[in-house]
C-alpha cells in the first residue's frame, strides 16, 4: 500500500534567478545563477549531488534537447542527468523526479533545475505551431491566451454571472499580482497598475486583455533535496519538507467526451485533492499561502474554486473581497506570480516552490508572511481542455 512522500524528503537549498528579459545571459548563465544560490543555501559540496533533473519546456526553440546543457553548465561529473518536459508544469515535474529519487532511497542528494531562455527566440517564446503530424491535420493552433480565455465564457454560462463582473474580478487578480510583484526584487514586472488601465487594455483573446495575460521570461530556479535525517545532520532542526506532490493529466476527456462544460480544470481538482490527502491537510484551514498558475487572470480565478479554496461560483466574489490579496484570507501570488514574477516556462514550478520555501524559512524580506504553516504550488501545463496539473505542498517537518 503506497504511503506517499509526506516528510520523506527535505528541501535544503533553493535558488532562483532574476526573471525577465535577460538579454545579457544565456541559458547556461541562468542555470549557474540559480544553482549557485541553491548550493550555497544547502551548505553541501556540489560533488555530493548524485542525480539531477532538468526541466525545460520549449527545448526546440531555446536550450536544446536532453539534460546535457545542465550537465555542461554546472559541470556535473558523470552523474545521471535527465530532462523532463510537461509543458508549463515542467518545473514541478523536475522537482517531483528529484523528490522521488530521494524518497526511494536511490540517492541522498538530488537536484531539480528548471530553465527557459525564451528571449533568444525572437518572438516572445510562442511555441512552434505543431501538435504532431496527425493532429496538425485537424487541431486548431490557438494561442495560450486563446485557450484559457475560453474558461471565461464557459464560467459565465455555468454560473450565470455577468461578464462585466467577471472581467472586473479578473482585473483584480492582475491588479493584486502587480501590487505584490512590486515588492519582489527578482520579479520581471515591478510596476503597480491601476484598475482602470487593466480594464481598458487592448484585447488579446476575448475577454482577456493585455493585463489579464502573463508574458514569458528568461529565468531559472532550482532545488536541492535530501532526506530529513540528512537535513537535520546538516544543522536544520526543523527542515522544510515535501508534504505532497501530485499530478493529474488529461486523457482526452475534456476535448473529446461530451461531459465537461469548460468552466473549470478537472486536473487541478483531482491533483489538489490527492495532494491534500497525501499531506493530510484541510486546505482552507491549513494553507498559509498559494502560488498558483496564473498564466491568465481567469485561470487564477477558476483555480481558486478548483483548489477548493472558494466555493463553486463564488471565486468571483471572493477575489473582489480581497480573500487572495497579500493581506487576505489565503494570500495568492505573494511574489507576483507568473503575471509579475515572470514565466520562464520550465522554471515556473520551481519558482513557485522557491517562494513557498523562502516564506517557510522566513527569508522573504518585505513580502514575508507571518505564521507560515503550509504553502501550496499549482503548476498547470497545456490548456483547460488538455492539461497537466501539478500540485505540491511544502511545510515544516514538525
Amino acid at each position: 500500500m503506497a504511503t506517499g512522500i509526506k516528510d520523506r524528503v527535505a528541501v535544503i537549498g533553493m535558488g532562483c534567478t532574476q526573471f525577465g528579459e535577460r538579454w545579457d545571459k544565456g541559458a547556461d548563465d541562468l542555470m549557474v545563477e540559480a544553482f549557485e544560490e541553491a548550493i550555497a543555501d544547502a551548505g553541501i559540496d556540489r560533488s555530493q549531488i548524485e542525480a539531477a533533473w532538468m526541466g525545460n519546456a520549449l527545448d526546440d526553440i531555446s536550450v536544446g534537447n536532453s539534460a546535457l546543457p545542465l550537465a555542461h553548465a554546472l559541470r556535473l561529473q558523470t552523474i545521471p542527468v535527465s530532462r523532463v518536459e510537461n509543458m508549463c508544469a515542467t518545473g514541478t515535474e523536475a522537482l517531483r523526479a528529484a523528490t522521488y529519487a530521494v524518497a526511494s532511497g536511490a540517492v541522498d542528494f538530488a537536484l531539480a533545475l528548471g530553465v527557459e531562455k525564451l528571449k533568444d527566440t525572437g518572438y516572445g517564446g510562442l511555441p512552434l505551431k505543431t501538435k504532431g503530424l496527425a493532429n496538425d491535420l485537424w487541431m486548431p493552433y490557438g494561442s495560450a491566451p486563446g485557450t484559457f480565455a475560453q474558461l471565461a465564457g464557459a464560467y459565465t454560462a455555468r454560473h450565470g454571472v455577468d461578464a462585466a463582473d467577471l472581467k472586473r474580478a479578473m482585473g483584480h487578480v492582475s491588479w493584486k499580482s502587480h501590487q505584490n510583484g512590486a515588492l519582489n526584487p527578482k520579479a520581471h514586472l515591478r510596476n503597480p497598475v491601476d484598475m482602470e488601465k487593466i480594464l481598458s487594455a487592448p484585447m488579446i483573446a476575448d475577454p482577456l486583455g493585455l493585463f489579464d495575460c502573463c508574458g514569458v521570461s528568461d529565468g531559472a530556479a532550482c532545488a536541492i533535496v535530501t532526506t530529513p535525517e540528512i537535513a537535520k545532520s546538516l544543522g536544520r532542526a526543523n527542515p522544510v519538507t515535501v508534504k505532497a506532490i501530485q499530478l493529474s493529466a488529461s486523457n482526452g476527456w475534456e476535448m473529446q467526451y461530451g461531459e465537461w462544460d469548460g468552466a473549470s480544470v478537472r486536473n487541478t481538482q483531482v491533483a489538489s485533492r490527492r495532494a491534500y490527502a497525501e499531506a493530510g491537510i484541510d486546505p482552507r484551514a491549513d494553507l498559509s499561502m498559494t502560488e498558483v498558475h496564473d498564466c491568465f487572470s481567469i485561470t487564477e480565478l477558476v483555480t481558486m474554486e478548483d483548489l477548493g479554496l472558494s466555493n463553486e461560483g463564488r471565486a468571483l466574489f471572493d477575489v473582489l473581497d480581497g480573500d487572495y490579496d497579500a493581506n487576505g484570507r489565503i494570500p495568492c501570488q505573494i511574489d507576483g506570480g507568473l503575471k509579475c514574477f515572470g514565466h520562464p516556462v520550465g522554471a515556473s514550478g520551481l519558482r513557485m516552490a522557491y517562494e513557498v520555501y523562502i516564506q517557510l524559512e522566513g527569508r522573504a524580506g518585505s513580502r514575508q508572511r507571518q505564521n507560515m504553516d503550509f504553502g501550496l504550488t499549482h503548476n498547470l501545463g497545456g490548456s483547460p481542455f488538455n492539461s497537466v496539473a501539478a500540485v505540491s505542498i511544502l511545510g515544516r517537518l514538525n
Partner: protein
Amino acid sequence: MSGRFISGASGYLPLLRLDRAAAAKALRFSGLGGRGAGTRAVAGWDEDALTLAVEASRALVSESAPAKFIFASTSAPFFERSQATLAIEALALPVATRSNDVAGSRRCAVAALLDAVQGSGDTVIAAGEKRPARAGSAQHFRFGDGGVAVRVGDVGAARFIGSASLSRDLVDTYASREHPTPYVYEERFVREVSARDVIAPTIRAACADAGIDPSAITHAAVHEPLPNLWRDIAKLSGVTAPNYATDLEAKAGDLGAAHALYAFALALDAAKAGDIILLASFGSGCDALLFEATGDTPGSSVASAMLATGIVTTDYVRFLSLTGEIALDWGVRSEFEQKAQGTVLERHGRNTIGFIGGRDSAGNVQFPKSRMPVRPGATGPEPMADIRLADVAANLVSVTADRLNYTPDPPFWFGLVQFDGGARVLMELTDADPKGFSVGDPLAMRLRIKGIDRKRGFRTYFWKAAPHVRPSLEN
C-alpha cells in the same frame, strides 16, 4: 418519361460580398476600378475552388452517392492531385465513385455536363472557382468566388432536349502558367465577335437540335464574356428570356467555370414544369444545352438562398489581402511551416477531410477515432464504426476570438464544439458575423483549408464550424 435529366442543382457562395462602388473609391486616384456597381463574392482565406465546389455538392449527395464525380475549375489548387478525388473523400462518397477533373477554359463545367447528359450513369458535375486577378484590373472586381454542383441521371426535374457545340480559339482572355492572372484583349472585339460568331450561332443550333424556336425559351443561363452582352446575344439568337447569369454577375461576380451552371441552378429554381431552360457557356467556343422542366429541382433553392445571404464589406485593403494582391507583413507570428507528410495523410487524411469519427461499443461518438475509446470506463481497445460528423448538428461549448494567434484574416476564432450524439471536437470557427460567437451557438460545418505550406505548395483540408444561419443581405 425516358431520357436524361437534371436530378439536382445547388450552389455555394462565400460569406463576404465586396461592395464594388465603395471599394473602387480606393482606386479613384488611378482611374482604375472597373464598373463600380453591385457586389462580388469574396472567398475567405481558407476557401478555394475545391472547398467551394464541395460545399455546393453537399445538398446533392446527402441521400445517395453518384456513380461519377467530376470537378471543373480554371483555378484548381492542384495541377497534379485530383480535386475530384479529394471531393469524393470530403463528401465521404464510396471509393468506387469514378472521378475526373476538367479544366482548360471556363466552359469546362458545362462541357462536362453535356458529356453527362449525352452519356449514361448518375453523375455530379461540381465547379468551383477562386480566380486570381490583379488589383486594379476590371477582373479583380468583376470576378467572384463560388461553387455549383449539378447532378445528372435517368430521372429528375429537367429533361435534356437538345444541344449544340462550337469549338473556336477566340482569345478574349487567357491565363497561363507564366501569367496566372487573366490577360485581356480588346473589349469591343470580344463583344462583337463572341456574340455574333460563337454564342448566338450555337444557341440557334441547339434550338434546332431540340426542335424549338428560340422564343420558346423561358429561362436563360448564358455566360456572357463581358457584362451587358446579353442584349446583343439575345437579339442575335432570338431568345427573349431573362438571363440569370447577368443578375448573378451583378450580385456575386463572374464565377468562371461555375458561372453558367450557377445561373442554371437559379433558372431551375424559378422554373415551372413545362418551362424551357437554355444553358450556354463560353470560352474557346461554346456549348449550349436545352432542358424542359418537369418538376422542382432538389437543391436549387439553396443556390437562390446563397445569393440572398452574406455580409457586405467595403474594406478594399481586406479584399486585397484575401485575394492575395497585397502581402501584409504579419510579423514573426506567421513564421512557421506546416509540412504534411504523405504517410500521415494516408493514415488519417480520409477521416480528416471526410470528418469521419468513430462510434465505440457503448455508442459514444468521438473524433478522431482511436484504438482506445475516450469513453470513461473503457477497458481496452474497441472497434469503432465510422460516423460522419460534417452534417451533424452542433453547438459551442467554449469560444474565444484569439487576436494573438496568427491568421490571415483576424481574429482567430476557435472553441470546443459539441455535436449532437456525443462527439466533441476542438475546432476553428469561420464565417463569423458581426456579433461573433457565443457559448451555446448552433453551428454548421464547412469544409475549409486547414493549413497551407507555401514553401512546398501544399495544402490540407478540414472542417470548420460556422454560424448555423447566415445573415440576410437585406438586413
